[in-house]
């Protein structure tokens, strides 16, 4: 007959048997980095090793690696800030367009649903670098609107190129989150005479934000690391600048390791906390549902 399963949210009952009591979940640690001092020692050793290795092979008359690194560090940091700017803007554009595309994927009108599905699949399954090249070489370098010429610099084209795969991935995140909600939410809203649009914006999407946040942040991390692709198409971001620094120092091979270690270090310091925060949010939302 009827399933009369014991409601999971019923208040706990008093019992003598400890196994009958609900399992007490450990309170979640507030957001905390899991790196210990030992990891720091490891990173420091890598830096010292690469630097001293380089130093050992350096002729005495040229500047020491530390001097060179200190000289160029502000420039490299500036380049890295540019990477972050590109990542934030690409993410913003990709999220805005991707959300619309994701909602179009659950449209009740088949032409809209099918075409947005196709666009999503197309850009999701294309290599990021190829999309970047497309944006770079297919978009004009300037616009002329009503006699006024507006330049269209490379870095803006890079943002557009990178926002394409972001858009497609956000579209899938939105679609997945909406479909993951129990159908009872839709039915309850329908029976209360909400329109489909109201249901979506007032009831479904607010609940989805929580579910979408971890994959969205994960995507942002990946995007940030992918911004170095822009160096291939000549945008002056951190990798391009690292290459120029190397050229300015007459291509000293002993600089390769410290220079690129530093770039790696910058990305790690920026992306690792995001990754940790994502894990924290995932575990937090997994319990509350």
């Amino acid at each position: 007959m009827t399933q009369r399963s014991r409601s999971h949210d019923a208040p706990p009952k008093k019992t003598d048997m400890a196994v009958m009591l609900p399992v007490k979940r450990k309170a979640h640690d507030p957001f905390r980095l899991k790196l210990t001092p030992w990891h720091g020692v490891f990173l420091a050793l890598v830096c010292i090793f690469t630097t001293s290795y380089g130093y050992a092979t350096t002729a005495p008359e040229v500047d020491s690696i530390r001097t060179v690194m200190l000289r160029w560090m502000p420039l490299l940091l500036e380049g890295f800030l540019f990477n972050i700017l590109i990542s934030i803007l690409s993410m913003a554009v990709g999220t805005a367009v991707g959300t619309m595309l994701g909602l179009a994927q659950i449209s009740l009108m088949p032409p809209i649903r099918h075409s947005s599905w196709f666009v999503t699949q197309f850009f999701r399954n294309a290599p990021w670098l190829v999309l970047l090249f497309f944006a770079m070489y297919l978009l004009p370098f300037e616009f002329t609107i009503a006699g006024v010429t507006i330049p269209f610099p490379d870095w803006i084209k890079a943002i557009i190129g990178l926002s394409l795969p972001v858009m497609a991935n956000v579209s899938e995140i939105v679609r997945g989150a909406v479909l993951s909600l129990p159908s009872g939410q839709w039915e309850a809203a329908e029976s209360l005479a909400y329109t489909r649009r109201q249901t979506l914006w007032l009831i479904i999407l607010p609940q989805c934000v929580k579910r979408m946040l971890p994959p969205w942040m994960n995507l942002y991390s990946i995007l940030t690391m992918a911004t170095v692709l822009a160096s291939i198409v000549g945008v002056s971001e951190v990798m391009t600048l690292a290459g120029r620094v190397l050229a300015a120092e007459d291509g000293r091979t002993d600089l390769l390791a410290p220079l690129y270690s530093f770039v790696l270090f910058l990305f790690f310091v920026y992306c690792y906390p995001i990754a940790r925060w994502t894990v924290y949010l995932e575990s937090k939302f997994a319990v509350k549902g």
Partner: protein
Amino acid sequence: MSWSDKEPMISVRNVHKSFGDFEVLKGVSFDVMKGEVICIIGPSGSGKSTLIRCINALNDINEGSILVEGLEVNDPKLNKLELRKKVGMVFQQYNLFPHKTALENVMMAPIRVLKEDKKEVETRARALIKKVRLEGKENAYPGELSGGQQQRVAIARSLAMKPDVMLFDEVTAALDPETVGEVLVTIKELAEEGMTCILVTHEMGFAREVADQVYFTDQGLIVEHGPPATFFENAKDPRTRQFLSQIL
């Protein structure tokens, strides 16, 4: 809509409904007058839930007619929103909106759908929450309430839309035996106040107590119906008898 309350409020005629090749409803007909309380009982899979979901167009029907205060549900041009403003529904799984508090759950639809004044709605919502005996729980989120409490909020949420008829789809089936009672009391009070109610239920004792008419469905058909006294004491159809003997 030229409907007067002398006529049946809900008139179901020869309703057929299939999911794929499986015919769930094979020609069901019944009438509900204003203020009547109808209980539909029957074995699982006999089409009880489908039947009441068809009344507010959550499921469409393949054949037949359902008139709700003169509105034809089986009409492709039906204004579903108009229909659903007349018909309230409570589900087995409560389906409260988990990101809103109990009070917000009750207030949202009248404000957003009926475009009523927020202050008036709040007064009404608080009164409804008091009516379902949840005073003090206004600001609790659904996750913080027990199943029975959530179900009572769901009833209040539906009542806030001032429906003419309430549909209850096995609303106690997911509850603890101890909390079933508190939900049934709420429904009983509602019935006594004259609300037209259609209940799908497995609570035979409750059906006997509140129903004006009891319908027994089996394999997509209404096998037998009657006032509870005759229905439970002198069931004529052997299938009804067998079912009752298993349950009672």
